């Protein structure tokens, strides 16, 4: 595949690994622990496992898999809300595929579908709008999910619905925003992180400026990274170089996709349609101020929260579940009490076991470096 294979070249990977190894050999390491680099985005986590990157890196570097999987951080109560909307016989509930398996307190959307609820998998919010056009006697609700990556496409779909005067379409808005979450992680006590790989696709929308505080106030290097394995290795090398040179800056490895100023048209649509919520509940991380968005009042008629009575109950994460600690990098997935026993991809207890981007599911599926080394 053109423009893809070039970034998966094993030869170049070996050169980069050598560079990383020689850089590491000249660095002063923190006492009694490796360097911790967090990849914020679930897309990175997926690539890291898919290409076996952890096993290729020197043991002085450990990757911490951050909170950037929107499916994983969805609280159970929100899934219950989705099921409740979907169970309205007038409703066609449209969702991205991997949200279907997320467990609610009683059932997932997949189970609700099996019981006869009209849940449809779509690839884009525009597909949901098409459903609304084709089914004028039904109410189509799109499950708006994801960080700034997917936020603009939902916003543009709402604007399109408005332009066409489509009234039987609404969005159950669960879009979340990454920056307050990174801040919450940086503020958490006992945190040991030496640098970040920044989320490439989020940055394609918001640009690189919003991360400046990480470098300036928290003195942590951040490199906005692409998703191909060579992108990730190069970004790790760039983080190490900053650490070695005592710098903490926001650098952009993914300049072929991410303009430093972001995407003006996307940002315009986002600010037109959404406003910040006071707080949003995250699975595993608790409530984080200003970390979610909702539709502005002008778009209330496209807001499922206004159109439908939603239970909006807060359901506590299961007590045994340690997703929060894994998300913050305090423990590794396999150190969780229920990893692989009470919590498996077949019967996920915690959010991180649900999506293939979730750190726990990825370890379970592809085998993390530690377990991997024991196993192979």
């Amino acid at each position, binding site marked *: *595949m053109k423009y*893809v294979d070039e970034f*998966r*070249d*094993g030869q170049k*990977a*070996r050169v980069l690994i050598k560079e990383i190894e020689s850089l590491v050999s000249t660095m002063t390491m923190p006492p009694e622990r490796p360097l911790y680099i967090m990849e914020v985005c*679930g*897309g990175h986590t*997926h690539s890291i*496992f*898919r*290409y*076996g*990157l*952890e*096993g*290729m890196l020197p043991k002085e570097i450990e990757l911490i898999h951050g909170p950037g999987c*929107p*499916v994983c951080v969805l609280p159970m109560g929100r899934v219950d809300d989705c099921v409740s909307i979907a169970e309205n016989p007038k409703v066609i509930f449209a969702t*991205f*595929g*991997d*949200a*279907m*398996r997320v467990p609610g307190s009683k059932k997932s959307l*997949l189970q609700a579908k099996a019981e006869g609820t009209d849940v449809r*998998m*779509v*690839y884009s919010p525009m*597909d949901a709008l098409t459903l609304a056009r084709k089914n004028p006697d039904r109410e189509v609700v799109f499950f708006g*999910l*994801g*960080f700034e*990556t*997917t936020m603009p496409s939902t916003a543009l779909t709402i604007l399109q619905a408005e332009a066409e005067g489509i009234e039987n379409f609404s969005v159950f808005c669960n879009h979340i925003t990454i920056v307050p979450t990174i801040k919450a992680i940086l503020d958490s006590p006992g945190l040991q992180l030496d640098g970040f790989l920044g989320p490439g*696709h989020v940055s394609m929308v918001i640009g690189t400026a919003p991360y400046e505080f990480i470098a300036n106030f928290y003195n942590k290097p951040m490199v906005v990274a692409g998703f191909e*394995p060579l992108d990730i290795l190069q970004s790790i090398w760039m983080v190490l170089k900053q650490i070695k040179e005592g710098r903490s800056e926001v650098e952009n490895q993914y300049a072929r996709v991410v303009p430093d100023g972001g995407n003006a048209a996307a940002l315009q649509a986002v600010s037109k349609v959404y406003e910040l919520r006071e707080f949003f509940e995250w699975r595993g991380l608790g409530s984080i101020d200003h970390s979610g968005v909702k539709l502005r009042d002008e778009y209330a008629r496209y807001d499922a929260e206004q159109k439908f009575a939603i239970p909006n109950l807060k359901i506590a994460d299961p007590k045994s579940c340690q997703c929060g600690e894994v998300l913050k990098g305090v423990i590794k997935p396999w150190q969780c009490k229920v990893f692989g026993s009470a919590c*498996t*991809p*077949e019967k996920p207890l915690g959010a991180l076991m649900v*999506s*293939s*981007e979730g750190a726990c599911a990825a370890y*379970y*599926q*592809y*085998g993390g470096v530690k377990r*991997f080394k024991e*196993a*192979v």
Partner: protein
Amino acid sequence: MNVAPFIRTRKLGKVSVETVTLAHGGGGKAMKDLIDDVFVAAFDNHALAPLEDQARFELAELALHGDRLAFTTDSFVVDPLFFPGGNIGDLAVCGTVNDLAVGAATPLYLSCAFIIEEGTSIDVLRKVARSMAMTAREAGVAIVTGDTKVVQRGACDKLFITTTGIGVIRQGLTLGVDTVRPDDVMLVNGLLGDHGAAILCARGDMALDTLIESDCACLHGLIQTVLAAAPGIRFMRDATRGGLATVLNEIAEASQVGIEIDEAATPIREQVKAFCEILGLDPLYLANEGKILCVVPPDQAEAALAAMRSHPLGRDSAIIGHATDGQPGRVVMRTVFGGRRIVDMLVGEQLPRIC
């Protein structure tokens, strides 16, 4: 197979309507007309035509092919019924022929049961029946007994087909999923994932236009060639639902060996790679309908590969990996990138990733 020409003594019924109604499943004249006009007309052979409640075989004739019977069944519920590269009828024949052939059996006879949703067009049934007849003829098997049921609208999705097959296994051949030893070599007969990708595209919910066609094919011929070239062959399985990854895991589990495959050596069409890339799917888990995995001892690997490549359905055959004495039950892939990852069994259905 030698089939004596059958002289028909009765007049076949004729269907005069365009769609199937519940009357066609009612046991009366409408049902008889449907069976005669659509199915008997297409599958015509000496065992079927008398329309007894069962097909009858001479044991002596079966014994000419070997010393053990192979018996298998499979149901086909594919949506859509017609897709690039084939239709549900082709699948129903190829699937069961392949399930027999991978056990080193010579496929001989098939049964077929149709569950039809009322309102299905008779023309669709005719097309499916004709495809089945043609595919069966090419595969040298006869469709010798069958059944039709008509259910109310909504009780099934247009058409479901179940085929059951009988074959005979040649003396001296015993293949088993639990017979694989470390260093045994894994081969596939061509490009993986075509069927799964073609079906997903044909369903039309992705708004993706591709030229990918199903690889649906009867593999008994190819399998005969491999059996002749590599008589020590341990095991074969067609990599249908769950794809190659599932078959590899089944072998690793049953034989208590590790398996290592090489991503760079695993043949996948560029279009299928791109399709998976866009949707966040893994081609190793995509269904195939004309691909088998063969496991042979190392000293017969080259012979098996050459034999497979010499067959039209095996031109893109490749050695993709081998069994190891690593952790039993574990399948590992060496990635193009030089890393290693575990290829596990799929938990549920493969769902596309959000971003």
